[in-house]
C-alpha cells in the first residue's frame, strides 16, 4: 500500500508497458500498453480473445509476462500472487465473484485481517462496526452480519468493491461488472464508481457494452487479437469508431467454403425460452446449410445449443425436425433424431481424458447400437474408428493411446470422429476450432464444408469473426439471450455483426 499515492503527482497511477505473453501456438499479447490516470474510469474494450483477460491475469500475478513491465505510481511492480497485487494497492473484481458464501459480509471483507481482542480472539463487535463504517462511507446499504449467500449478484459485487476499498487500493479493476445485474443495480454501481473516482482511485473497467462506455468511462483503450489498437477520450468518438477499432482486421482467405445446394429445412426452433437464460429464440437450418451463430461472451449461444440437444432442455418453445414437433429431454433423444453436438469445452464436457482414443471415439455410437447378444461388436468398431481416425488425420501412436497425451487439435478431431460415426443429419458445433493450431483448424474447416456438401445441416457457434464470416451461409447474431439479427453471407461483415452483438 502506498499511502502517499493520493498525493502521487505523476500522470499515470498504473502503466502497462509493452507487455508480451505467448502461449504454445498463440501470441496472446503482443506489446500492449494501458495507462490509467488517477481519478478516472478507463474502459478496456475488445472482442472475445482480444487479450483483455490475459492482461488482467498478468496484473493480478496469475501469469508472468514474457516481456514488458507494469509500473505502479512510476515504480515497476513485481507481482506473483493476487495477494501481492492487493498489498501493492491494486484490487480486482473478477467476473466470477470470489466471496465465501457461508460467511457474513463483515467476515468476507476482513478475512485475514480480522480485528482481534486482547485474548487473541476475533473481535466481532469491532469488525461489524468497521464494516458498517466502510459501507456507510460508500453509501452501500447492507447489513454487515448478513450471510453472503443471501445476497444478490449486484450486492455481492458491492461487497467486493467494499473489500477492495478497505485495502485502500489505488487502482480497482472490474471485469464486466454488469454482466449479471439488473438495470437499477447498474445505476447504483455507477454511482459508487463515480464516488470512488472522486476519491482519486483509478478504475479499469472491462466491458463489451458500448452504452456503458459512454456513460461511465473517461477514456478507453481497445485491444484486438492481442495487440494494442489505441487509447482515446470517450467524448471524442462515436459508436461506429469504436466498433471499427475492435474489428478492423483483414480476413485471410483460409476458409474453403464452397457453395453447395441447400435443401429443405431440417431443424426449426420456435420461441425457445429458458427463463433467466435466453428468450424467444427462433431460427431454422436447412440441409447443406451452415448457420453461423455469432455473439459476445454472455450472449448465451452455448445454452441454446445445449437446450436443443437436451443437455439442459428449455421448458418453453418448440423444436421441429423435418417440420414435425419433437420432444427432446436428454441427449439420447436428440441423437435418435439424427443430431450430434460438439461441445464448447473439450476437457469439461467432451473428452474422456483418461480413457483411450478408441473408447472416446465409440462412446456415442455404442449408445445407439453395435451390440450383439449383449456384447459390443468391438472388431467392427475398431475398423470404423481406424477409418475415421485416418480420414481426419488424427495423430496418435495408436488407438489405445490415452487421450490426455494428445494435442488439443487431435483431441478435437477425436470428438468430431465420435459424432461423425453416428452419421448425423444435424451437426451442432460449439467453437469447433477453439485452442487448436492453424493447420488442424483449416482441416476442420474443410471437413465441415464437406459435411454440408453432403447435405448435413450445420449449426456453428463461433467467437472468431473470420471463421463465422468465412464459413457460414447465414449468420444469426445473439445478444444477452436474444436473437439480435440475421445476416446473409453476401451482406455480412464484421462491423454489422459487431453492432448487432454489442448493442
Amino acid at each position: 500500500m502506498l499511502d502517499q499515492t493520493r498525493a502521487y503527482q505523476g500522470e499515470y497511477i498504473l502503466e502497462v508497458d509493452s507487455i508480451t505473453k505467448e502461449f504454445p501456438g498463440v501470441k496472446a499479447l503482443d506489446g500492449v500498453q494501458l495507462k490509467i490516470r488517477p481519478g478516472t474510469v478507463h474502459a478496456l474494450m475488445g472482442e472475445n480473445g482480444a487479450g483483455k483477460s490475459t492482461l488482467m491475469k498478468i496484473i493480478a500475478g496469475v501469469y508472468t509476462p514474457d516481456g514488458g513491465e507494469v509500473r505502479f505510481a512510476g515504480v515497476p511492480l513485481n507481482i506473483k500472487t493476487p495477494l501481492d497485487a492487493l498489498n501493492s494497492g491494486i484490487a480486482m473484481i473478477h467476473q466470477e465473484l470470489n466471496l465465501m458464501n457461508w460467511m457474513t459480509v463483515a467476515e468476507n471483507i476482513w478475512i485475514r485481517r480480522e480485528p482481534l481482542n486482547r485474548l487473541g480472539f476475533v473481535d466481532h463487535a469491532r469488525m461489524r462496526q468497521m464494516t458498517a463504517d466502510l459501507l456507510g462511507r460508500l453509501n452501500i446499504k447492507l447489513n454487515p452480519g448478513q450471510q453472503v449467500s443471501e445476497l444478490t449478484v449486484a450486492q455481492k459485487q458491492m461487497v467486493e468493491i467494499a473489500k477492495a476499498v478497505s485495502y485502500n487500493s489505488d487502482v480497482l479493476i472490474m471485469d464486466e461488472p454488469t454482466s449479471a445485474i439488473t438495470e437499477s443495480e447498474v445505476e447504483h454501481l455507477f454511482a459508487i464508481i463515480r464516488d470512488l473516482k472522486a476519491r482519486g482511485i483509478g478504475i479499469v473497467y472491462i466491458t463489451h457494452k458500448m452504452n456503458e462506455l459512454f456513460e461511465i468511462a473517461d477514456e478507453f483503450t481497445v485491444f484486438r487479437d492481442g495487440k494494442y489498437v489505441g487509447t482515446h477520450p470517450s467524448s471524442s468518438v462515436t459508436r461506429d469508431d469504436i466498433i471499427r477499432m475492435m474489428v478492423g482486421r483483414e480476413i485471410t482467405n483460409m476458409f474453403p467454403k464452397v457453395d453447395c445446394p441447400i435443401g429443405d429445412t431440417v431443424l426449426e426452433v420456435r420461441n425457445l425460452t429458458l427463463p433467466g437464460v435466453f428468450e424467444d429464440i427462433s431460427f431454422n437450418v436447412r440441409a447443406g446449410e451452415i448457420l453461423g451463430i455469432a455473439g459476445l461472451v454472455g450472449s448465451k449461444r452455448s445454452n441454446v445449443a445445449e437446450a436443443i440437444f437436451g443437455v439442459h432442455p428449455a421448458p418453453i418453445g418448440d423444436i421441429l425436425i423435418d417440420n414435425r414437433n419433437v420432444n427432446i429431454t436428454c441427449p439420447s433423444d436428440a441423437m435418435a433424431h439424427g443430431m450430434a453436438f460438439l461441445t464448447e469445452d473439450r476437457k469439461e464436457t467432451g473428452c474422456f481424458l483418461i480413457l483411450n482414443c478408441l473408447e472416446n471415439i465409440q462412446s456415442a455410437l455404442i449408445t445407439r447400437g453395435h451390440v450383439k447378444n449383449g456384447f459390443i461388436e468391438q472388431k467392427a468398431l475398431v475398423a470404423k474408428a481406424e477409418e475415421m481416425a485416418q480420414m481426419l488425420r488424427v495423430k496418435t501412436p495408436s488407438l489405445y493411446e490415452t487421450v490426455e497425451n494428445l494435442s488439443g487439435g487431435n483431441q478435437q478431431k477425436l470428438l468430431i470422429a465420435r459424432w461423425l460415426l453416428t452419421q448425423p443429419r444435424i451437426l451442432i458445433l460449439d467453437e469447433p476450432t477453439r485452442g487448436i493450431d492453424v493447420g488442424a483448424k483449416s482441416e476442420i474447416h474443410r471437413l465441415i464444408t464437406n459435411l454440408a456438401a453432403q447435405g448435413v445441416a450445420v449449426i456453428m457457434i463461433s467467437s472468431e469473426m473470420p471463421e463465422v464470416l468465412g464459413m457460414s451461409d447465414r449468420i444469426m447474431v445473439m445478444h444477452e439471450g436474444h436473437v439480435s439479427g440475421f445476416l446473409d453471407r453476401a451482406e455480412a461483415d464484421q462491423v454489422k455483426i459487431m453492432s448487432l452483438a454489442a448493442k
Partner: protein
Amino acid sequence: MSETSMAAPVRRHRPMMAELNILLVLFGICAVFEILGWIVQGQSFLGNTQRLSIMILQVSVIGIIAIGVTQVIISGGIDLSSGSIVGATAMISMSLAQAAGYERAVYPDLTGLPFIIPVAVGLIFGLLCGVVNGALIAYTKIPPFIATLGMMVTARGFAKWYTKGQPISFPSDGFAAIGKGMMPVFIFLVVALIFHVALRYTRYGKFTYAIGANPQAARVSGINVERQLVRIYAIAGLLSALAGIVVAARGLTAQAGMGTMYELDAIAMAVIGGVSLTGGRGSIFGTMIGMVIFGVIISGFTFLRLDAYYQEMIKGVIIVAAVVADVYRQKKRKKA
C-alpha cells in the same frame, strides 16, 4: 508426438497392462515372506498348500464384495454399505434356510424350504438396497459417501432388529453346502469372470468407465447416466448379499454383526489392485490381485506369529499407502 508428422499410423496393440506392476508387487511381497519364513520360522511360506488354500478361502468372501465395489469405484463413487448388507442378508437368508422340524426356528412354519428360496430372497434384498443407494445418488445427487453411509447404518440396524439381536442357526444341508469346502472360492471365481467380461466387452462396462472418466461427457454422448448408476449400485448390493449368504452358510449361523468392516476391506482390495478412487480406471483382474495381496499379507503376518493387533494397524497403513501410490501414479501420468 510431433505435429508435423502426417496421417495416423493406427497400430493395433494394447499398451502394457497397468496390472502387471501390481502383480510384481505381489511377487515381491511373497518373496519377502518366503525369505522371512526361512529366517524366522525355518520353513517355507509358499510351500504350504494348506496355508494358501485357507488364505484364499478367507479373502474370497470379501472378494465377492470387492468385485461389486470395483465397479462402483470405477464409476467414480464409493459404497460403504456392503458390510451391513452382508449382515442383514445373512439374517434374512438364514431365517428362511433353517432345517426342517427345527423347533426354535424364526419362522417355524417355514423350515426345510429348498435352498433356492433363502438365496433368492437374500439376493433380492441386497439388490433392492443397492437400487436405493443408486437411486439416491443418481436422482437426488447426494454424494455416494453419504447415501451409502445411510444405508450402512440402516441395514445394520435392520439386521439387529430382525431377531432383536438373537443369532440364527441350524440351516438345511442344501443351504449349508453353499459355504462348504472350496465352494466360496468357486463362487468368487464365477462372479469375477462374469464381471471381468461385463466390464470389458459390454455396454454396461463401457458406460461405467465413461461415467467415471467424465460424467458430463458421458451424458452428452447419449449415455443415460442416472440409469447406469442405479444399475452399478444395484449390482454392488446384489454381490454384497451373495457374500452375506456365503458367510452365513459357511458359519452355519447368522449374527447381526456379520460383515462389520467388510466394506473397508473390499475397498482396500480394489484400491491396492489399482482401481483409482477418482474413477475411470481399474479392472476386475487388478482387484483380484489386490485381493491376493491382501490375503498374503494377513496370512504372512499370522505365519510370522505377529500379534493380531499389529496386523490391524499394519492393514490401515497399507490402505493409505495404496491410495498414496494411486495419487502418485496419476501425478506421474500427468507429467508424462
